[in-house]
């Protein structure tokens, strides 16, 4: 049953569950990095250190989420317990060293070694798992592209960190834009695009007919590759690549809107609301980068829109489902007879939507004001950070709702009775 929708399997079938403790650990550490990034962007501004704290958030979320999703999406073998925490710990240590290096610590060389090792292990392990999967050829191919982009971006990043740490005299800093394009677009972007093709129909309860043969996703991948390669020296190539990305993102957005319009779910849930806002940021980021090929001052705002808006808001939105699912399963395993609140009822919606509003105002304000008035741009970053931390608090409250469920509790009028 190639390319059939298996994403929903993430919500059940115990035999396919995949080291949930490992995923929980990776995602918890990822959220800690996100909060760290928010604190750093408030206290020190939008520095490379803050930027790479957010990068750690994206990478560690990917480690946890892919560990959970790969077996159920592709029927790849389950992971042995312990592998994910080891990989996640390596990334966490590497990113701490890297962020510390950007703030003056003599840790770039160690960061380069630890991150390169972690990236190599994770990518190799994940590619083997993708190759052993039996379902979802398109999903596996696009995820393989994302992992290849991550490996290349990580290699360039390690080379730059090694240079900053005095490991070699060769200069790699000139290809930092290639690193950024591959990391943000090739890895994180393609990961979000691929997963969204599965999550949006599932969360909306809608058919996935509107996605066709995923041509828009392939176009996005091609555009990212062309733009990344061209950033090494061809402005025309960069424009062609970025224009392709803009058009592909518009097409993907239209496809998601078509899917949402045919949904059976009465109201869009919190994950889809976050996703809808995030996709506007994705289109804005790609457009800013495209225009930035004429006006380079727009590249930093494009990065802000991509990381703080598109990627972070998408991931935080999906985290309400992923964290909710993992902790729901954990509570159910611990207390089989407990009455658990349904997932949608356990989210603190005023807090979650309040956080989204702050992020949706703060990120574009910061991006728009960056080229002109850094003091006012900082206010946008501050607003965003408050919203981002509030979103993490909402996710933590959701997790606590299940993790601290007691046997006799009646959380809502919705009952879930597991009799054995």
């Amino acid at each position, binding site marked *: *049953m190639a390319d*059939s*929708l*298996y*994403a*929903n*399997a993430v*919500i*059940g*079938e115990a035999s396919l569950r995949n080291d949930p403790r490992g995923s929980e650990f990776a995602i918890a550490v990822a959220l800690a990095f996100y909060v760290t990034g928010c604190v750093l962007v408030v206290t020190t501004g939008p520095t490379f250190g803050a930027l790479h704290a957010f990068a750690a958030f994206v990478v560690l979320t990917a480690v946890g989420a892919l560990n959970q999703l790969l077996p159920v999406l592709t029927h790849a073998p389950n992971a042995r317990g312990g592998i994910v925490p080891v990989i996640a710990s390596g990334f966490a240590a590497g990113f701490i060293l890297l962020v510390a290096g950007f703030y003056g610590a003599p840790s770039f060389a160690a960061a380069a070694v630890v991150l390169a090792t972690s990236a190599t292990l994770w990518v190799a392990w994940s590619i083997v798992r993708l190759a052993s999967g039996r379902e979802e050829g398109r999903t596996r191919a696009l995820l393989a592209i994302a992992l290849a982009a991550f490996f290349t971006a990580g290699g360039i990043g390690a080379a730059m960190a090694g240079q900053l740490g005095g490991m070699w005299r060769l200069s790699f800093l000139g290809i930092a834009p290639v690193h950024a394009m591959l990391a943000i677009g090739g890895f994180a972007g393609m990961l979000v695009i691929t997963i969204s093709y599965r999550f949006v*129909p*599932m*969360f909306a*309860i*809608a*058919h996935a007919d509107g996605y066709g043969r995923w041509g828009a996703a392939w176009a996005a991948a091609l555009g990212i590759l062309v733009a990344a390669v061209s950033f090494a020296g061809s402005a025309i190539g960069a424009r062609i690549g970025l224009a392709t990305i803009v058009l592909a993102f518009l097409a993907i957005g239209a496809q998601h809107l078509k899917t949402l319009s045919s949904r*059976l*779910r*009465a*109201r869009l*849930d919190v994950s889809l609301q976050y996703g809808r806002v995030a996709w506007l940021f994705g289109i804005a980021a790609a457009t800013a980068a495209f225009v930035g090929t004429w006006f380079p001052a727009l590249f930093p705002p494009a990065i802000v829109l991509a990381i703080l808006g598109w990627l972070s808001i998408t991931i935080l939105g999906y985290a309400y*489902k992923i964290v909710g*699912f993992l902790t*729901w399963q954990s509570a159910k395993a611990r207390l089989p007879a407990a009455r658990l609140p*349904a*997932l*949608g*009822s356990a989210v603190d919606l005023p807090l979650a939507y309040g956080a989204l509003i702050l992020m949706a105002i703060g990120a574009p304000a910061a991006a728009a004001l960056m080229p002109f008035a850094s003091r006012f741009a900082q206010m946008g970053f501050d607003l965003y950070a408050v919203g981002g931390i509030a979103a993490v608090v909402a996710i933590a409250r959701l997790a606590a709702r299940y993790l601290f469920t007691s046997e006799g509790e009646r959380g*809502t*009028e*919705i*009952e*879930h*009775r*597991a*009799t*054995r």
Partner: protein
Amino acid sequence: MEPKSSIVQLDNRGLSPPEPMMRILAALENLGAEGVLVAKMDREPIFLFAELHDRGYTYTCNPDDSGGYLLEVTRR
């Protein structure tokens, strides 16, 4: 005349998500006030539960003998 308490049965095993959830919601459209929907599932449809609540239904979902789950939905 509609039976006072009709039972609608669905076998959603082997279907790719979100097809099981869509079939359940479509069947509920035609479920009488006293009706019961019983669905055999491969997995617990935990993302469906809040939707059922919003639409005024209550449910139980328990493991069955085949290794799957049996979902029963009634109007509150």
